[in-house]
């Protein structure tokens, strides 16, 4: 496994950490594996070997320029009318029933509303399963990985807005801009019904502006604390008055919009679009977005370290220059990042704690386990702290070490037991899921690549964690010996070995 040697001299002088200059070292199995895990959700040994064979440039282009790849997934099916506004007639009927104290009709109306709420929660679960399946199946992993990033960045929770169709539409919006233009995404987010409801902009009035969206638009979505003033929030909120939605569509209510002059971030603005333009004009916006991209793709520098160190800060700076040069087009930045020496440096590889989504989707994609029951997986992800469409707050998921505590570790290990062996977590259904996992394929793949002559433990370690030179290897080999008596390692033992390797602390990393 080669380190992050670079073709050119590292300008920052951070030897061993690589730089933003193109990666000049090898692009072998280890590097290709790293790329697939970070720019996607991991891949099988065969996929890793395939893109390693392509070489760095083609591999990166395939992942980043995914527009030419058929995703091969099915579209979501969802109804947009479950949580529709009640019609004037329905409202009249309720008023009439209330006035005449017609308790029977009122009870019926109540039941209808409750039924709709139940239907909508059910649809939310279906959409949740749909997305999980899409992440598992897609041929464009970066597209889904970015959609997940933006979902956490522009965090909106179903728990608050209780409208599954709006959540799905927002998800599709993120996907359509995923590697596109960040500026376009900002214009879209201030028109997004789910976000408008989540941050109460639909309740904003020209004489009583709600500042929630204006604040988070700058603090969490684009600039970060310290790069705007309270006054910018106040005036920005006025610019955003009238931005609301009717039914499932964005609507600009001119009658509710404050037309008086405002200044935001030193610029005269009229409406929300001007507000976004003023944000995009700030260099800090590009830096904020690139710091986010860096943390997501390169390293969640240990939680608690608020500042990136010199090497990371240097790379983030280069990335934001590129982002501004490209007028907020994301692809050029991602392309350069995945081609950079820094990205492949020893410090970066194998150091990131997998998010629950990364763990679950990655296991199915890289080990080719059966996907099993998506409901069980979704429950398990909730236990690990990441339920899709339910981020804990507008700040999204903190990520990094915050994923890990003594309870989530068991949830993670046990989800892997379920994927690998089919054994469900206790309390749900003790019956094992019948569809078998075939670890023999992993061993065969590793052997075919010449990584492990006849050594099943080494083969599984290479495929599952990318290295076999760890101290726990002896324990695993002893286990395999006891089980097989020195002979061929049988299927049941391979399954158990895979469960053990997935329980290694190191398996939580990618």
């Amino acid at each position, binding site marked *: 496994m080669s380190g992050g040697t670079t073709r050119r001299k590292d300008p920052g002088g951070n030897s061993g950490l690589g730089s933003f200059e193109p990666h000049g070292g090898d692009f072998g199995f280890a590097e290709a594996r790293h790329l697939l895990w970070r720019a996607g959700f991991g891949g099988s040994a065969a996929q890793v070997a395939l893109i390693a064979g392509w070489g760095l440039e083609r591999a990166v282009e395939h992942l980043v320029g995914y527009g030419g790849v058929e995703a091969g997934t099915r579209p979501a099916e969802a109804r947009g009318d479950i949580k529709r506004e009640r019609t004037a007639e329905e409202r009249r009927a309720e008023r009439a029933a209330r006035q005449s104290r017609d308790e029977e009709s009122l*009870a019926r109306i109540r039941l209808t509303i409750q039924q709709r709420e139940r239907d909508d929660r059910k649809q939310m679960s279906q959409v949740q399963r749909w997305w999980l399946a899409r992440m598992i199946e897609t041929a464009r992993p970066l597209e889904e990985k970015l959609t997940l990033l933006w979902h956490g960045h522009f965090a909106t929770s179903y728990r*608050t807005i209780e409208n599954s169709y709006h959540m799905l539409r927002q998800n599709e919006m993120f996907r359509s801009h995923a590697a596109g233009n960040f500026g376009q995404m900002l214009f879209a987010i201030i028109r997004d019904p789910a976000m408008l409801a989540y941050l109460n902009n639909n309740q904003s009035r020209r004489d009583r502006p709600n500042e929630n969206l204006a604040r988070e638009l700058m603090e969490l979505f684009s600039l970060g604390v310290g790069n705007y003033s309270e006054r910018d929030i106040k005036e920005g909120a006025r610019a955003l008055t009238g931005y609301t939605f009717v039914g499932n569509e964005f609507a600009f209510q001119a009658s509710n919009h404050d037309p008086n002059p405002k200044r935001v971030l030193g610029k005269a603005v009229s409406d929300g679009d001007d507000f976004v333009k003023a944000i995009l004009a700030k260099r800090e916006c590009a830096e904020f977005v690139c710091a986010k991209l860096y943390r997501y793709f390169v390293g969640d520098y*240990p939680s608690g370290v608020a500042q990136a160190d010199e090497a990371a800060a240097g790379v983030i700076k280069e990335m934001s220059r590129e982002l501004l040069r490209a007028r907020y087009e994301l692809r050029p930045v991602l392309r350069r990042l995945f081609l950079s020496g820094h990205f492949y440096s020893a410090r970066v590889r194998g150091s990131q704690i997998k998010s629950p989504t990364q763990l679950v989707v990655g296991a199915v994609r890289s080990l080719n386990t059966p996907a099993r029951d998506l409901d069980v997986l979704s429950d398990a992800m909730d236990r690990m702290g990441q339920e899709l469409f339910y981020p804990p*707050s507008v700040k999204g998921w903190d990520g990094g070490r915050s994923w890990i505590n003594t309870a989530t570790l068991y949830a993670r290990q046990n989800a892997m037991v379920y994927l690998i062996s089919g054994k469900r977590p*206790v*309390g749900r259904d003790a019956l094992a899921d019948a569809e078998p996992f075939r670890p023999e394929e992993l061993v065969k793949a590793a052997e075919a690549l010449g990584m492990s002559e006849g050594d099943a433990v080494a083969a599984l370690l290479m495929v599952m964690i990318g290295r076999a030179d760890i101290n726990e290897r002896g324990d*695993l080999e002893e286990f395999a010996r006891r089980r097989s008596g020195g002979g061929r390692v049988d299927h049941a033992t391979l399954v158990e070995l895979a469960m053990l390797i997935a329980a290694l602390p190191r398996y939580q990393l990618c």
Partner: protein
Amino acid sequence: MSGDIPTTAYTRRQFVHGGLVLASASVTLPAFLSRSALALPRAVPGAAAIPGVDQDRVLVVVQLSGGNDGLNTVVPYFSPDYYRARGGIGIREDRVLKLDKAAGVGLHPAMAGMAELYNEGMVTVVQGVGYPNPNRSHFQSMDVWHTADTSGTGDGWLGKYFDAECCGYGKGESGRPDGSAARGTQLGLAIGAAAPLAMRGRTASSVSFESPELFRWSGGEGEGDLGHAYDMITRAPDAVLPGEEGSNVEFLTRTTLDARVSSELIRKAVATRPMASYPANSPLTRQLQMVAAMIRAGLPTRVYYTTLGGFDTHSGQGGEQGRHAQLLGQLSGAVRAFYQDLKASGHDAKTMTMCFSEFGRRVGQNASNGTDHGTAAPMFMIGPMVRKGVLNDHPSLTDLDSGDLKYTLDFRSVYAGVLGKWLQAQDPAVVLGKGYKPVEILRWRG
């Protein structure tokens, strides 16, 4: 791995093969406890102490999910307006378990156990608790209660308390002083699928499990060769390779070790037999029985979180009997047995229980013999150290806010009492914001 495991004193094999809990406890407890010790306030000179009560006091939260009908729980039998509004489901005055004649309120007849506790001086009923501009959505109102913030956003109130006690972080601040504080310190422990928002903080992590069986490796922990191999790899002191000190590998290795230790402590604790008999299986019984066992075992946990659901009684709520009565009976019986259990082992005095719901229900019943989402409701504080009685005035049953009670006490004043008086938080305002006068919930005043 760094200094926690003296590998010279224990060879790895002894470490793994020794009596698991004892060996692991003696070897790794320093790591496990050192963090907790930070957060368990030692008796501070000058700080109020209750004679005979451990400084490591415990709070048990019982959350009644769905919106408990406060008016049929603590019944205002003094009021003809109550009976007018509750023609079908009202509780007859002669059936109410009277608490305080002057206040004119009493408990639902299904709550005999709670009434006994009250007569023994172990219950405070706090009436009319709510918050301004009440939200009638289950989720959002629950979030308000969990975050102690009427926007329902931000970290949980208990999480903020843990943060403030262990790391000096408070409301509105963020970030971690260092990565290590996130390690497996079980200040808060919730029985349920996921740790409640109330316990979510920046630095301190809370543990949750539905059953202890989920708080272990499902692959076959403790079973033959496989269990042995699992032990070896999850307790491996040499898993961290040279150059990985301080890395995520080390962090994960240590947390894995912490998980093994606390899992064993907890499972061992809950496997012990209760010291009192609990009423037939109800979900809350099972939870409180586990909590009593963990308190008895001396876990370094300060707050336990339990939940009883099913209170969303839009239809068929029933009156003296029926669904709501059953739920109240479960609550009352479970809490009664819980304190008998704790008393038998001498842990009752250090344990206070707080019972709340996200909202009460409307004053008038609906056409389906049920009640719809409302606002203010009573809370219960339970334990030998609480001030017996009915606190705060009952909200008016005639001066309503579109059919709903107007709250007479902000729930954050109750939290302020719990944090300041019981848990002895240094400054509850750090968690709750300023302006909430703590409710005097303790019988003993320092």
